[in-house]
Structure formats: structure tokens, C-alpha cells
């Protein structure tokens, strides 16, 4: 894993990618920091950070598109996958290299609360907690980008796919508000979600019996629950999906200045899930 980590990191800094990511993120953080904190006099750095979140939509794909798609394209994955390194090691090595690149501008941003302190009141606890969750949110997005990159051989498709998925995540709350709130609507929505999960399952496991079984059992359970007490189904889907809102967790840190442990756990478990899925995608390719 360390070998891959070192190589990846060197590749990011030998090419422009790493530098561009660091420079662009630092510039945007700097602009908002100047505008909000230095010029307008807000004492919370976290406001400036939340304004820069949108930049990730463009920058994360730049960082992640190459990671696994390029290995497959240039067939260097043959070297990695036939080496004694485990598949998890390969994926984690790459992931940690990207996190290291991300850590550079975030560490630079750690200076900002100190600058605020020099000019008056600062809120260290709130601001550094926000920086932590800021880093983790970007880490989730990088894990998404890495998964997409593992799915394709083309860097362009990886970049565009990641951008679209991140866009959906930013619009998550707005999209959820479009969902029907009635009980019947939730039932239909849950069934659609179930079908999607089963499709993913069958793509990963390659066994239609397993996914078919899950589909039938799941649908039976949902319909049974619905016929017993349809009242609980009202608003069920929007509420359930609302729990996965990435921005909500970030905002409770950045705007409400609350150390939101469930949000933190959501991020960490999403990272674990996405890394796991990436490993599975690569594993699956051996069997294609």
C-alpha cells in the first residue's frame, strides 16, 4: 500500500493535477475568507468554508478521474493486480494519496482562524470542527469520484460522471422536496429504491438468484407493512432520504456550530462503503 501511496502522490505532484487542485482550492478559500471575514468582519471562518463547497464539484473530478480509469486504460493495473499487494491495499493507497493532496489546502486554511484571532474574536472550536467536517465531506466526494473512476476506462467519462453525481448531492434537499409525501407515493418510491438496490446487487454478485430473492422478500415485507399500517408510510421516503443529505451534516457544523456526531458517522460510513464498493468493482472485473 505504501508503494502505491508514494507513487500516486509523486504522480500528482509531477503532473499539474495536484498543484492545480491545491492552487484552485486555496484561491477560492482565500477569496471567500477575504470577502466574508476580512472585509465584512464575520468572526466565523466556517461561513467562508460553506461558500467554497460548490468548488468541489469542479475540483474533485479533476483529482479523481485519473486514479483508476488511467490504470486500466494504460494496462498498468496488470502490474498492481498481479503484485503481492492486496486489492484493498491498492485502493486505499490511491485514496490516501488523494486525501493527502486534499489535506494541503485544508491545512493552509487552518491558518485563517488564527488570522481572525489576530484581528479580534475568533471561534476556534467551531471553526476547526468545521474544517474537520469540511475535509471529511471532500473525502466522501473523492471516494465517490474514485468509485466512478473504477467503473470506466475513460477519464472524461469518469470526470463527467463524478460531476453529475456531486451535483445531485448538492441538490439533494431540493430534489427530495419534489418527492410525493403521501403514503402511496412512499410505497412506490420504496419499491423503486428496492429495485435499484437489487440491480446493484446483481451487478456486483453476478447472481440473479440472490438479487431476485432479495427483491421478492423485500417487496413482500414492504407491502405487508404497508397493508398493516399505511399511516406510517406518509413522508417515510423523503424523511429517510433526507437523512442522507451530506450538506445537512456539514451545515450543522458550519451554521449551527453543533458538533454533529451522527453527521460525522454518516461521512465515515459513506467513505467506508464507497471504498468497499470500489474494491468490489475491481474484484468483479476479474470475473467479467
Amino acid at each position, binding site marked *: 500500500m505504501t508503494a502505491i501511496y508514494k507513487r500516486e502522490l*509523486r504522480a500528482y505532484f509531477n503532473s499539474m493535477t495536484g498543484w492545480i487542485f491545491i492552487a484552485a482550492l486555496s484561491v477560492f478559500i482565500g477569496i471567500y475568507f477575504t470577502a466574508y471575514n476580512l472585509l465584512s468582519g464575520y468572526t466565523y471562518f466556517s461561513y467562508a468554508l460553506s461558500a467554497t463547497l460548490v468548488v468541489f464539484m469542479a475540483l474533485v473530478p479533476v483529482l479523481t478521474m485519473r486514479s483508476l480509469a488511467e490504470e486500466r486504460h494504460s494496462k498498468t493495473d496488470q502490474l498492481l493486480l498481479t*503484485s*503481492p*499487494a492486496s486489492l484493498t491495499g491498492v485502493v486505499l493507497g490511491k485514496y490516501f494519496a488523494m486525501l493527502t493532496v486534499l489535506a494541503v489546502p485544508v491545512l493552509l486554511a487552518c491558518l485563517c482562524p488564527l488570522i481572525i484571532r489576530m484581528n479580534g474574536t475568533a471561534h476556534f472550536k467551531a471553526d476547526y470542527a468545521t474544517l474537520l467536517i469540511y475535509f471529511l465531506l471532500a473525502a466522501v466526494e473523492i471516494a465517490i469520484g474514485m468509485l466512478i473512476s473504477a467503473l470506466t476506462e475513460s477519464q472524461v467519462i469518469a470526470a463527467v460522471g463524478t460531476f453529475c453525481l456531486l451535483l445531485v448531492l448538492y441538490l439533494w434537499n431540493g430534489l427530495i422536496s419534489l418527492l410525493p409525501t403521501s403514503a402511496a407515493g412512499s410505497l412506490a418510491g420504496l419499491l423503486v429504491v428496492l429495485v435499484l438496490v437489487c440491480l446493484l446487487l446483481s451487478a456486483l454478485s453476478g447472481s440473479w438468484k440472490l438479487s431476485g430473492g432479495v427483491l421478492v422478500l423485500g417487496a413482500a415485507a414492504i407491502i405487508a407493512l404497508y397493508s398493516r399500517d399505511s399511516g406510517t408510510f406518509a413522508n417515510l421516503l423523503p424523511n429517510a432520504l433526507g437523512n442522507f443529505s451530506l450538506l445537512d451534516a456539514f451545515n450543522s457544523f458550519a451554521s449551527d456550530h453543533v458538533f454533529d456526531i451522527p453527521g460525522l458517522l454518516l461521512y465515515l460510513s459513506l467513505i467506508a462503503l464507497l471504498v468497499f464498493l470500489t474494491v468490489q468493482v475491481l474484484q468483479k472485473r476479474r470475473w467479467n
Partner: protein
Amino acid sequence: MVEVQNLVKCYGGRSAVDHLSFTVEDGQVFGFLGPNGAGKSTTMNIMTGYLAATEGTVLIDGHDVAEEPEAARRCIGYLPEQPPLYPDMTVLEYLQFCAELKEIPKSERENQIGQAVSMTHLEDQTRRLIRNLSKGFRQRVGLAQAILGFPKVIILDEPTVGLDPRQVVEIRELIHTLAKDHTVILSSHILSEIRAVCDRVLIIRKGKFVVCDTPEALEEKLSANDRLELLVKGTQESAESVLDTVEGVIGHTVSDVTEDTVRLEVRSDGDRREALFYAFAQARCPLLELRSRMASLEDVFLDLTDESDEVAARAAALLTCGEVLEQNAPKTAAAKTAGEEDTPFSAPEKEENAQ
């Protein structure tokens, strides 16, 4: 030791490798021979754990590639068809990365990289970016990567493709050096190359096992009744009369007649070159040329791996038929009956045997 048992790999409905089994003993140079698309690369990719087999097992030094992938891969150095190089690294950086990836202890890394570099004659290239290297050098960097760590089994997928003749000779020499204390498995679609380096040859066609033997034995089998090509100065009659006096000559055909020379193709049982030489010398009938028809091995390989199933089956039958004839040489009657039941092409041979 490498054991491949009943290997099957299906892509969609098509099988790229079809129930392939073979064993490679320690210290052998083992060659895969087959036309493009015969399943050589797929087999190698499965052996190295890059692809998973649909069915069957691969044991590398007792480790199952599917069950204990990491232990099995530790015993393997692999050069895929396209060398897996990172163009943004220098040769030295790349080899250092590979050494670390292969978990070579830090204290040995320098030394091993030095050895691999000198074996592949890359001493002057170590500071160059891989991006700027020519195809031959890239191939050598890939090779250096495969031998790093000096694993027990070194698998090379078409190591000499795209190299100039001199580089091909260098790589062959390297394979000979490696063979002293490694098992080397290599693939090629060029027969002469396999013949030059391999102790054992496996011919595959459309993912199926055709034959596996030493090159010498294959050659012997294929030229079970030796074919010689003669260019004799003299008339056809005089040449034929001399031929009739030589023991062991089964038959001949005249392929070309000019004013004062005759070109003949002679079939004999065993090597009769000396007898022919003396017979013609005694008759004061000059032999201008006398050579074994080695090209026929190439022809048979082409037939064995022919696109058309019929041609390939006929060629394969020739191999086994050669075996039957050899084994049953004293019992001509048995050979005859075996010949009668065989495919039509063996008929002429039977006739010749009877003569």
C-alpha cells in the same frame, strides 16, 4: 512447480480457454505456442491472478491462485503483453516502485534493482523518463520489472514482439540465464523462437490443448518418417536407381527436373543421410544439396493452429498417428489396422510402410 488443471474462461458465451491442463516442472523453460487469439494471454492472466477462471485451478508452487492470491503472486514475476509502465516515471523510479510493490526488503532493493538493470542492459537508461524510451527499451524495462525479486516463476507474454533481431537474441540469452534458477513460462506465436529457448512446448488452439512435448520430440513426431530434400546432378533415372540401393528409403517424389539436375523429396525411416551420401558418392553422382525438410514442422504448426477445424484435426491426428507408428514399429500389422481406421491422409504413409 506450476499446475494448471481443467482451466476454463468464458467471455459471455464464448470460451477463450477451454479445459486446459498442463504442468510446468521447476527449472523448465515452458513455451506457449499458438496463433493470435488462441488464449495464450488469457491463460497467463489467469495464472498470474489478474483474471479469475470460470472453472479450474492454478497452483503456483502449491498455492492456489484463487484461494491464496497473495502467496501465489509472491512467487510470480509477470511481463504482460503490453509492459505495464508509467510514462511519467524514470526507469529507476519505476523499478524502485516495483521493488517496493513486490515487498522486497529495503536492504536488498538497491542490489536487486542493480542486478535487474544489468541483466536487461539498461545501465545507461536509468535516468530517462519512460515516456521517452523506444519500444525495445520499454520492453526491457518491463522485463526488468518481471525479474525483480527473482521470483520462482517468471511469466513472459510475447517478450520479443516488436523488437529488432539483435534485441531478440539478447532477450533469448537473458531467458537462458534466467532459466538456470527460475521456471520461465513464455508465449509466442513464432515457432522458431520457441524452439530456440524452450525445454517444453504447449501448442494451444482456440483455447484448447493440442499437444505438449519437448521441441525435439515434437519435431521427431512430426517428421516421423524423415523427409529429406535432395538436389542431384544427373538424370532422374540415375538418381532413382541410386536411391533404390539405399536401405531404409521408403519412397520419393520428384519435385523438379532441369537439364542436368533433379530435385527429389525422399522419405526414409530414421536418419539415412549418411547412407545416402555414400551411396551417391559411390555411384559418382554428385549430391548438390541434402537437407532435412525442417520447414515441414512450421507447416504442421500452421496446420495445427489453422482456422478451419478440419485442417487442424487432421494435423493433430498426424501427431498422434506418428506416435502410434513409432510405438508399433515392430508390429506392422497393428500399425496397418490403426492406419486403416485413421483419417484419409494417413493412407499414403501406410502404403509406403508396406512397400
